[in-house]
């Protein structure tokens, strides 16, 4: 920035001295603004700080006013109690459900995205726009008929019932279509000339090239599956089948003011997503910007 302004000053024949003071004023305002943003960001992080420190507070401390900003005598009681609820089981349930959903979504979406972007067949555009149109609908509309359907299929209170509908939602197809579209078609023709059949072309040429897209999709699917609270809430009833967010929500009703315990549970429920997010921030950014329909 500094270099640029000096350049401009030179070009305009403005005395450099004036420009330097204007420049330092600009830098000063800039740093104040950045400071305000960072302060605001810290406020956003506060609930997380409060949750994690809360997990190490006994009930007496957790409800004390004035509050203990940092637990003076951290306790592990909440975490021990948490193991009994059974949060470990819930955690594994969530891992399994989100993992299976992610795997299925990535496979079907990568194939469909390839088909919609690189194959030509009658009805292709209509099908694509149908997917896009459906995505603007609020998902809750289909949850009532889906619930009725799942009960008829005897899939109520089952993992299969949780997973199947999530695979149908067309967001992944849309994302993979946008991504696969950017591959040069000449490459696929070359593969064909080299004697690759359809499957070989897809697995050996296309799939390795769209890996970054699949990475972004995988993270998003895992996250939305982990956090798909509404569907989990209506589909799962028995304690051993619960997911971790569902289990924690139920715990909150049972132990209403035992905040230490509830915070320990909340921490456990959000750790995987926060960890995944912090390690793959680039993929998130890419997924979000890629998913945006270009105006």
């Amino acid at each position, binding site marked *: *920035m500094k270099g*640029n302004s000096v350049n*401009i000053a030179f070009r*305009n024949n403005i005395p450099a001295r004036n420009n330097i003071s204007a420049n330092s004023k600009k830098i000063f305002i800039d740093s104040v*603004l*950045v400071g305000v*943003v*960072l302060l*605001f*960001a*810290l406020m956003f*992080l506060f609930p997380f700080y409060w*949750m994690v420190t*809360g997990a190490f507070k006994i009930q007496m401390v957790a*409800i004390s006013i*004035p509050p203990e900003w940092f637990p003076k005598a951290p306790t592990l009681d909440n975490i021990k109690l948490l193991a009994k609820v059974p949060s470990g089981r819930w955690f594994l349930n969530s891992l399994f459900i989100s993992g299976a959903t992610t795997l299925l979504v990535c496979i079907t979406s990568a*194939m469909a995205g390839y088909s*919609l972007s690189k*194959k*030509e*067949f009658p009805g292709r555009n209509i099908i694509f726009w*149908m*997917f896009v149109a459906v995505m*603007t*609908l*609020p998902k*809750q*509309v*289909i949850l*009532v*008929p889906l*619930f*009725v359907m799942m009960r008829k299929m005897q899939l109520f209170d089952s993992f299969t019932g949780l997973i*199947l*509908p999530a*695979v*149908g*939602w067309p967001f992944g197809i849309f994302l993979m279509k946008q991504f696969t579209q950017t591959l040069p078609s000449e490459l696929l023709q070359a593969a064909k000339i080299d004697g690759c059949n359809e499957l070989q072309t897809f697995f050996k040429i296309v799939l390795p090239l769209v890996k970054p897209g699949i990475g972004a999709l995988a993270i998003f699917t895992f996250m939305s599956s982990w*956090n798909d*609270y*509404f569907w989990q809430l*209506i589909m799962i009833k028995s304690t051993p089948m619960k997911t971790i*967010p569902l289990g*924690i*929500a139920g715990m909150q009703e049972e132990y209403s*003011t035992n*905040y230490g315990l*509830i*915070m320990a549970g909340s921490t456990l*429920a*959000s750790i995987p*997503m926060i960890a995944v*997010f912090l390690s793959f*921030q680039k993929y*998130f950014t890419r997924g*979000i*910007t890629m998913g*945006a329909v*270009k*105006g």
Partner: protein
Amino acid sequence: MQSQNGMLKFKKVLPGYLFLLPAMLFFLAFVLYPIFDAVILSMYKYNGVTKTFTGISNYVTLIKDDVFRRSLSNTVLMVLINVPVTLVVSLIISLIVFNKNEFIRSFTRAAFYLPAVSSIVTISIVWKWIYNPMFGILNYIVGIFGIEPVNWLGDKNFALLSLSAVLFTLSVGQPIILYIAALGNIPSTYIEAADIDGASAWVRITRIIWPLIKPTSLYIIVITTINSFQTFAIVQLLTSGGPSYRTSTIVFQLYQSAFWNDEYGLASAMGMILSLIVVIISVVQYKFLSNDVEY
């Protein structure tokens, strides 16, 4: 000859269909079929056992129902608060940080997106503690400034605003990521040119930057609107729609009538009304805003 030609053509388009097939099956069974089923179900009285056709009577019931009308106006109010606030705040933050170093950008993106990635259950539970009128830290903090304790979630004047604040923290992350990316894509020569012309920051933002990021803004407005209309989890976990239906939303009512009262037909009618509103608003926003994108 003719049929051979047909066969050849069929063989050529077949792989396209086959790659699409798995995704399509899931989509048809778990998305498209339920959408049609929801339309049909909305015209029946159905409690899971007996099903009687009632025409538009579910819709008539809803239009006359005070609780539903209140939920509808609550939802609209939340959208009207959340969408402009999210748009303006995310734009201001992004304008401040987009040309700063990678650490500041990365930290900003992460801090504001964190609530959206961690489970919505976790966020709601932590806020419930923060808002607690007796043990919550918020009343302690406002108390320092001499403000009387407030029953944030129980007072009918504050409950909806308190929920909107949580909704805002969940909404603002994605727009910030999108804006930082969009602003980073503006060629720096455009902004430098304005610098040379001595344009003020305000002119630079409104005349040069805003037109260039309009498609991004449009996308942000549409998705934030769609998402805000679907507010459910924070209502269910923080207030259960109270006090006296002040925070009840359409989706919360849908949940109550389907999964507490077994009124699947009525719930489907609510879903249809919600979809209709969301689709109309998205189309209007798109038409209204995309018209002046082009010049």
